[in-house]
C-alpha cells in the first residue's frame, strides 16, 4: 500500500522535475548574456566571446542544448560547469553536504521548538501565554531576516565576541566549535521557519482539541498535558508534518540570505552564482536539487501522515 504510493509519487516527482527543468531552462534562456560573456566580463570583445561560445557549445540552439543536458542527466551525469570547468557533480558534492548540515541543524532546533510553542499555545488557547507566544512568533517573521542576522552578528560576534561572525567549518571541528559556528545561522533560519510551523501546529492541535474524543479524555480525568500529547497530537501529525515539510524545504533555497551574511558556502549561493554567471548546467542541477528536495519532503510528510494514522495504515 505505502510502497505503491511511494512508487506512484516518485513517478509523478520525475514528471514534476522534468517540468521544473523545462521552466528553469526557458526562463534562463531569456536571460541576457551567456556564460561566455560573463566569463570574459568587462574585457570581452566580440571575437573572443564568439570563440569561447563555440568551445562551450553555446552556439547550438537552445532546445538542442536542453536535450543534450537532459540526456546527460538521465545517464547520471549532470555535466561540466561552464564557468569553473569542474564537473557539476563535484561542485554540488562540496556544497550540498554543507547545506544539508545547516538545514539539518536548523530542523533539529526549529521543529521541537515549533512543536513546543504550537502545542503550548493550543493547550492554553486564548490565555495570556497563548497571546504572548503568538506575538513572539509573529515578531519573529515580522523582522527581515537579514536584519535579524546582522543584529545577532553585531551583538554576539562583534560586541560580546561569543560567536564567530562567519561560519567556517573545518573538517576536524569539535562539537563545541560546530555549535558555536552554527549558532547564529541556525537561529536566524529558525526565526524564519518556526513561526509558520508553530502556528500550523497550534491550529492542527486545536482542531483535534475540539473533537469529541478529547472531551471524552477530559471526562476520563486525564490531565491537559496528557490530553495534548497523548490524545490530540498523534492525530494532528498529518497536517503538522505537512507544514514542517513545507517549511523545511525552504531551508535549502531560502537560506540564501543567511548564506550571504554568514559567508556560508551552501547550495543557495551556488545557485545564485550559477545564475549570475549563466552557468546553465550548474543552475539546472541546483534547480533539480531544490525541486527534488521539496518533492521528497512532501512525500515523506505524506508517508508519515499515513503511518501515523491507523485508518490509513491498516487499510
Amino acid at each position, binding site marked *: 500500500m505505502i510502497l505503491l504510493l511511494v512508487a506512484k509519487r516518485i513517478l509523478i516527482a520525475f514528471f514534476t522535475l522534468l517540468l521544473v527543468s523545462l521552466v528553469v531552462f526557458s526562463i534562463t534562456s531569456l536571460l541576457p548574456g551567456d556564460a561566455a560573456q560573463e566569463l570574459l566580463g568587462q574585457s570581452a570583445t566580440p571575437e573572443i566571446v564568439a570563440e569561447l561560445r563555440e568551445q562551450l557549445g553555446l552556439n547550438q540552439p537552445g532546445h538542442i542544448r536542453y536535450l543534450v543536458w537532459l540526456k546527460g542527466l538521465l545517464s547520471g551525469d549532470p555535466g561540466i560547469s561552464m564557468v569553473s570547468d569542474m564537473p557539476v557533480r563535484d561542485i554540488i558534492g562540496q556544497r550540498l553536504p554543507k547545506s544539508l548540515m545547516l538545514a539539518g541543524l536548523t530542523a533539529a532546533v526549529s521543529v521541537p521548538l515549533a512543536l513546543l510553542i504550537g502545542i503550548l499555545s493550543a493547550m492554553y488557547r486564548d490565555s495570556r501565554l497563548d497571546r504572548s507566544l503568538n506575538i513572539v512568533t509573529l515578531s519573529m517573521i515580522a523582522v527581515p531576516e537579514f536584519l535579524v542576522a546582522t543584529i545577532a552578528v553585531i551583538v554576539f560576534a562583534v560586541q560580546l565576541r561569543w560567536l564567530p561572525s562567519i561560519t567556517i567549518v573545518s573538517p576536524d571541528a569539535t562539537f563545541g566549535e560546530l555549535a558555536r559556528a552554527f549558532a547564529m545561522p541556525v537561529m536566524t533560519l529558525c526565526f524564519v521557519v518556526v513561526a509558520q510551523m508553530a502556528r500550523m501546529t497550534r491550529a492542527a492541535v486545536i482542531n483535534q482539541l475540539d473533537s*469529541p*474524543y478529547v472531551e*471524552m479524555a477530559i471526562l476520563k480525568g486525564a490531565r491537559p498535558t496528557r490530553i495534548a500529547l497523548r490524545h490530540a497530537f498523534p492525530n494532528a501529525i498529518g497536517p503538522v508534518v505537512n507544514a514542517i515539510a513545507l517549511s523545511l524545504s525552504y531551508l535549502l533555497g531560502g537560506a540564501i540570505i543567511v548564506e550571504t551574511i554568514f559567508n556560508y558556502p551552501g547550495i543557495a549561493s551556488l545557485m545564485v552564482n550559477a545564475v549570475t554567471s549563466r552557468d546553465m548546467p550548474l543552475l539546472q542541477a541546483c534547480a533539480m536539487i531544490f525541486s527534488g528536495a521539496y518533492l521528497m519532503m512532501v512525500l515523506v510528510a505524506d508517508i508519515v501522515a499515513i503511518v501515523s494514522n*491507523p485508518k490509513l495504515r*491498516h487499510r
Partner: protein
Amino acid sequence: MSAHLQVSGLEVTVSGEHGERIRIVDDVNFEANKGEVLALIGESGSGKTTIALALMAYARRGCTISAGQIRIGDTSVLELSREQLFGFRGNRVSYVSQSAAAAFNPSKSIMDQVIETAMLHKLSSKSAARSKAIELFSSLALPNPETIGNHYPHQVSGGQLQRLMAAMALISDPDVVILDEPTTALDVTTQIEVLRAFKKVVRNRGTTAIYVSHDLSVVAQMADKIVVLKNGTVREAGETMQVLDAPSDEYTQALMAAAKPSLRVESLKKPDSETEAALLELRDVSAGFGRVDADGMPKFTILHDVNLTVERGTTLGIIGESGCGKSTLARTIAGLHPAAAGSICLDGVPLATHLSKRTRDQLRRVQIVFQNADTALNPAHTVEQVVGRPLVFYKGISADETHKRVAELLAQVKLPVDIATRRCAELSGGQKQRINLARALAAEPDIILCDEVTSALDTVVGAAILDLIAELRRELDVAFIFISHDISAVRSVCDDILVLYSGRTVEFGKRENFAAGPGHPYTDLLVSSVPELRQGWLEETSARTILRPVDNAVDVDEICAFVDRCPVRLDGICDTKRPPRLIHANGNEVLCHLPQAES
C-alpha cells in the same frame, strides 16, 4: 435518607455577542437514588447534554456553570478543586457519548482507551484492567471479547463501538454513569442489541445512570424516572410510568404525539390507466464503484439488479439500514452516480445514466432533496436565490415573476415570505429542510427523491416535515420516492414500500402489508426492532440468537445476502443457493428461500 444524586438550582450560562450572559440551563433540580436510571429527555437545544456534563463539573467552551449544587454521594461536585476533579472525573462519574465513532481516539487501540481510566486513576494493574475489560466486553455481548480490544476504532462497527464505550465507562466501577444519546446514531436493528446490553449491565452492577435522549420510546425501555427538558428548564419530572401514561405538561404531550406512529396518507392513488407507462421505472439497475470489468460491472457493486416502478402522483418508500445502498439508489436515479447496468425510464423514455447526457427537461422533472439541509443549501445564498434559481434556470422567467413565484413556494412550504431575503446559513434545521423542498418544487417536477429528509431533525420538527410532504402529495400531482431508515416514517407517507438489504430488493409491496404479518425475515426484524412507547417492550422482544457466520469461501453473490443475520435460515439451502423471488399471499414480492411463514 437523601438521594444518591442530587441536582439543585443548576444554572449554566454562555456569553453572548456583547459579553452578556445568557442562561442555557436555568434552575434545574432533580435527584436519583442509587441504582436508578434517570432519563433527561428533550430536543436539541433543551440543555440535556449540558446538564449531563455539569454532573462532572464540566462545561464546554464558552459555557460556565454559574450556580447550583450537585451532590453525588457525599461529594459536592461543583466545589471540587481543579486537582480533585482529575481524580473525580472518570473515576466516580463516567460518560458515554452519542457518537462513539467520534469519541474514540482514531489513533489509539481500543484496549488502550478502554483501560485508560483505570490507568489514570491507578485503580488496578494493567493486566487486571485488561481482564476486567474483556469481562465487560463479553457481558456487553461483544463478539470476540478476547481480541476486539486490539483493534483500532475504525475497524469495528458503530454498534460495537457504542458498547465498547460503555465498557470504557464502566471499567472504573463509577457511582454514576452518564449515557448521552448512546443509540441515536445506530440502526434500529443494532439499537435494540445495544439497549439490551446496557440495560443488563446497568442492572447487574447496580449503577446509577443518567440516560440522555430525545427518543421517548427508547427512554421508556431504560428509565425509572424521566425529566422532560425544554430550553434549559424542567417541564415535567416523575416516574416513567406516570410521565408516559399521564403527561401533564403540554410539551410532553406534543413529544408523545410526535413519537406515536400516525398515518398521514389517507387514500391510495390508483394509476390513471393500466396502459399508460409508469412515471418512473427501473429495470435491473446495478451500480457500484471501482474499476469496471469487461462486463461493464464495477469492482464493488452496491446495487444489484434493482427493479421498481413509481406511478404518477404516488409515493414509494425505500427502507433499509445504513450502507444498504438506498442513497446510491437515489443518486443513480438522479444521474449523479451512473448506473452500470439496467435501464431507468421516465414516462417510458430511457434516461441517460449520466446526468450530463440528460436533457434539461428530464433533469427538471426529477428533483432530489438531500438528507442534510445544512450542506444541501449554499450558505452563501439567500433563500430567494436558492428557490428562485430553478425558476430562472428552467423557465427563464423575469425577476418580478420569480419574486412572486418564490413567495408562493414559500407559502406552500409554510414559511413566511420575509424569509426570502435571509441567508440560508441563518435558518433553523426545519426551515432549511422546507427551503430544500421548496427548491425542488420550484422546478415543478414529476418526481421528487427525498433522501432521509427527516433523520437529521428533532422528532417534532421531523413530524412537521412529514406532514408537509403528505400535504404536498395531496395538493400537487407529484410523485415521491421517500428514502429512510425509519420504518414508521415510511409507513406514514408511502403507498408502496421497498425494503433494500445489501443492495438488493428483499421485499416490495403495498404499505398496508408491512403493518401486520410476516414478510421477509429482514423486514420482520426491522419492524420488530422499532421500540414501542411503553415500558417492558424491550424485555418482551425476543433476544436475537447469535448466529454462526457462513463459510467465507462461498461467493456471497451466489447465496442469500441476509443469511448471516437470518434467524430462520435453513442451513444447506440459504447458504448455498441464490434465493428466488416469491409472491406472498398479500401480493408482496419477497426475495427468500422460505415459503411464507405463519407467525
